[in-house]
């Protein structure tokens, strides 16, 4: 599953967006997305099946963004 992740300069996740099919959901918008703020970046990330099945809040708690590979990596404990 593809999601958009906005993160800060340390790779900490600020926001995750799974938008889905807008037309099927009844939206009148044709394009929707996140707009990174100052010091933030947005990356598209392909989630593994395991990560895609987990609640998004758990991704915030346990993962951060590796900007070089545009992927989620476990936070060091």
């Amino acid at each position: 599953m593809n999601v958009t992740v906005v993160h800060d300069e340390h790779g900490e996740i600020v926001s995750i967006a799974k938008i889905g099919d807008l037309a099927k959901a009844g939206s009148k918008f044709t394009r929707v997305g996140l707009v990174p703020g100052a010091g933030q970046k947005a990356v598209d990330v392909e989630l593994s099946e395991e990560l895609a099945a987990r609640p998004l809040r758990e991704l915030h708690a346990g993962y951060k963004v590796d900007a070089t590979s545009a992927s989620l990596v476990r936070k060091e404990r």
Partner: protein
Amino acid sequence: MASEWGSNSIAPGSTAGWYFSRPNLPGFLPVLQVMPLSPSFANNDWELTGGGYPYFNQLGISTIWSELSDDLATATYYMEVQNNSNNTIEYAFLEADSYGPALVAAPTGGLVSNSNYFLDAGGAPLTGVVAAIDFSVDFESSANGYSFQFNCYSTEGNAITTEWQQYVIYASPGSTQLWARIDTWNGTAAADELNRIDQALANLPSTTIPAGYTFTISLTYTNDGTGTVTGATYDVTDENGHSIGSTTITIVPHILRTTNHPATSANLAPIAAASWNIGGDYGGNTATLTSGAGIVTCSADNGLSVSTNEPSYTDFDDGTAENANLIFGPLAEFSTTSVAQSFVVTTEGGNAPQIRRDGRGRHVLPAPDAASIGTVD
């Protein structure tokens, strides 16, 4: 009923900016809200920001900002989602949009330079008409000057011989001189031209019409209640609202080109419809515009409606020939005493003109001559 879509999350104490795009539709009201999908575990404290804005320690949204694309085709709305709690919150969007009146279909030639909607009042004479152009972006032409044409279609009747009335502000290529023009016609042939009257209007600071300038054409009338148009007053104001030029043209008693006699009240007529066009200076010229955007307006005492085609109760069945790389924005079905419409210069296709594709004729605005500018009778 609202639609619910998306599955998103936001970190505690964070703000997420969002954009929402859709085709431009006048009267469309986006109604968006967030629906939390996970608890915030917060206690509903509220405070004021340093600027006095109140907020709860919960999930919330900002006001909505909006943007119209350069080509007038897309409206994009911006909103911020804020999580003022101490926990990550998952949320969806709830959308329950509201619509105004439906769009009026564009003419078959499109909403371009010399093909635009018609404004009318169901066949009644339009009275108190004031047409204006407000420039929000510098307007520049690199070839064939420009003309702003408020083209008016007369009411029909046995006593009506003037079928088309053109109220125009134009400039020749490379010139800073703005001219006011009235051109009246009793038919579509070149020999049907009644009056061609040019008067100097204003001198611009350069060949560019600066952003903030306004051109106004106020029609003048007989005082007999018939709505008969006698001429127009033209005004140009700068970005500070100061006048830089004004002139009034009265049709009577300028010399008729058809008879060489002075025009009389028999050569005047009320108007039943009008259309804004923007093109090259005259002679069927196509302007090459390099910059420009703004709003054309038309106000009247009547309730104005928007029509796709020339109304059946006018008799000219033609439009102007002058063309340019410029488009107009869509309008909705409404009746109002003031209609505002966006226009923008389009540079896609290398400043190619906007081609009108319908079967209407292409009526040429004639070039000025000694008779029209009053150097000979």
